[in-house]
């Protein structure tokens, strides 16, 4: 049984069915990439796992426990943490305060918070230099580091990242994804939503391709990277996998 198991997830926005039966697994130390075009349902999948959206049907279990219907702020405490699309750091708070909020559920354990902050600063030395600076004044790359660091403060078993390389210069994007790989190697299960399929597949173990709310294709990352349909659709071409 996988650490995170999603089965036949159906999610609606009003009458529009955004997810039409998504199933996926993630294991510790694994980077699982979720690829797909705009509006395919990648973000919706993460938001539903995080508890920000409620599925109409389907199951989500973490460590064998169902987390469907559990409020988002409780899900964090169960070990699932998300770096949302667009970073969504608290721009009026400084770096240190942003990290403090990442450890909100452990706020009474000051020593633990201190250690986790130190670990984040070790992972992202740039943040340590700017710990007193307002988050809104950080560069895009630094903001992404902060968003990831903030999510790591709760020491998640499952870390979900929504487009962490979006808007970053290519070199910075590679460095962020490298860090994502390191986080998985340390033991977390990582769900990585990415537009940049080539770089995502380079660091991922397994990947799912979502098209209009369904899993169109899945497999080992290396196999998918060399798959002709994926190459056409996401690594240069423009056709969809389904029509190939």
């Amino acid at each position, binding site marked *: 049984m996988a650490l995170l198991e999603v089965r036949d997830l159906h999610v609606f926005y009003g009458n529009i069915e955004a997810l039409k039966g998504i199933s996926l697994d993630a294991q510790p130390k694994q980077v699982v990439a979720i690829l797909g075009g705009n509006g395919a349902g990648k973000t919706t999948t993460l938001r539903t796992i995080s508890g*920000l959206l409620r599925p109409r049907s389907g199951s989500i279990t973490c460590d064998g426990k169902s987390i469907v219907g559990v409020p*988002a702020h*409780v899900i*964090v405490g169960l070990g699932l943490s998300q770096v949302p699309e667009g970073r969504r750091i*608290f721009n009026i*708070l400084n770096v240190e*305060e942003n990290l403090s909020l990442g450890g909100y559920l452990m706020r009474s354990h000051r020593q633990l918070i201190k250690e986790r902050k130190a670990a984040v600063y070790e992972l992202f030395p740039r943040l340590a230099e700017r710990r007193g600076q307002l988050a809104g004044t950080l560069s895009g790359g630094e903001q992404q580091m902060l968003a990831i660091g903030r999510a790591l403060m*709760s020491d998640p078993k499952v870390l979900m990242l929504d487009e962490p390389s979006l808007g970053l210069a290519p070199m910075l994007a590679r460095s962020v994804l490298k860090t994502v790989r390191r986080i998985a190697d340390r033991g977390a299960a990582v769900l990585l939503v990415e537009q940049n399929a080539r770089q995502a597949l380079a660091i991922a173990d397994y990947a799912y391709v979502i098209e209009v709310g369904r899993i169109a294709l899945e497999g080992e990352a290396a196999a998918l990277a060399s798959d002709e349909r994926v190459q056409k659709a996401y690594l240069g071409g423009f056709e969809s996998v389904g029509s190939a």
Partner: protein
Amino acid sequence: MGVFLQYTVIGLTVGSFYALVALGYTIVYGIIRLINFAQGDLSMVGAFLGWTLLVSFGFEHLPIYIALVIAFVIPMIGTAVINIGILQFAYKPLLRRSLLAILITALGMSLLLQNASELIWGPAIQAYPPNLLPLSGFFIGPVHVTYVQIALVIASLLLMCGLVAFVQGTTMGTAMRALAVDHDAARLMGINVDAVIRVAFVLGAMLAAASGVMLGIYYVQIQFTMGFLLGLRAFTAAVLGGIGNIPGAMAGGLLIGLLEAYTTGYLSGTWEDVVVFGVLITVLIVKPTGLFGERVAERM
């Protein structure tokens, strides 16, 4: 000059009460974009709870420090409970609906508190014990300052400092500021957004109740209608300072107090509201973001 300074002393005293009520508006608005129009009436309820304890229960005869602690703390708690009730039963079901629905509900809550208070405490003007604090004072040059004024202004400042320390210095306060930016991101941190909203309502009500008791001590007379104008003036203060902005609410409160004192002194008391609400309209037209004008989403 002496007259001007005298008005200034009066204005700062009254302004510190407005500032407390304005802070309640601003904290709640900063988090859920709701103008809690019951804010002024919560102050009135606080004043009456304090009056009940001091006069009806006779606590005014206790040693002054004990009497004051009781007269402030219990109304603050009671009013906080009322505000939580309003949040849970009136606002919460509407939070995801239209802003207009919740705005009208807020006005309804204001009327509800007024009418309930009229039923409980009657329509008549009630009087706080006049000699609770020494009425005497002293002169600084030509300006007469009373001990009551000093005590009340200091108490207001202490409450404001306490609020700022809470909002800036605690993780809960940081969570409140985070909510002013992004509710969903806050949820993803494990922050129970509903619980933080409740904390904001508790703080707002406590500040309102404290200002109500202070008004009772300062003006002696209280009546169930007193919260209405008080609330509107404090709202003006909050808008003037930039609603959602804590230092702005404090500055706005003091400015409205001064404006009121100068108007009453140099023109006449009947012009007070004309000037105060003239300011409200002018700010809304000329600089809707208020004196500390930033974008609303980047406040607190």
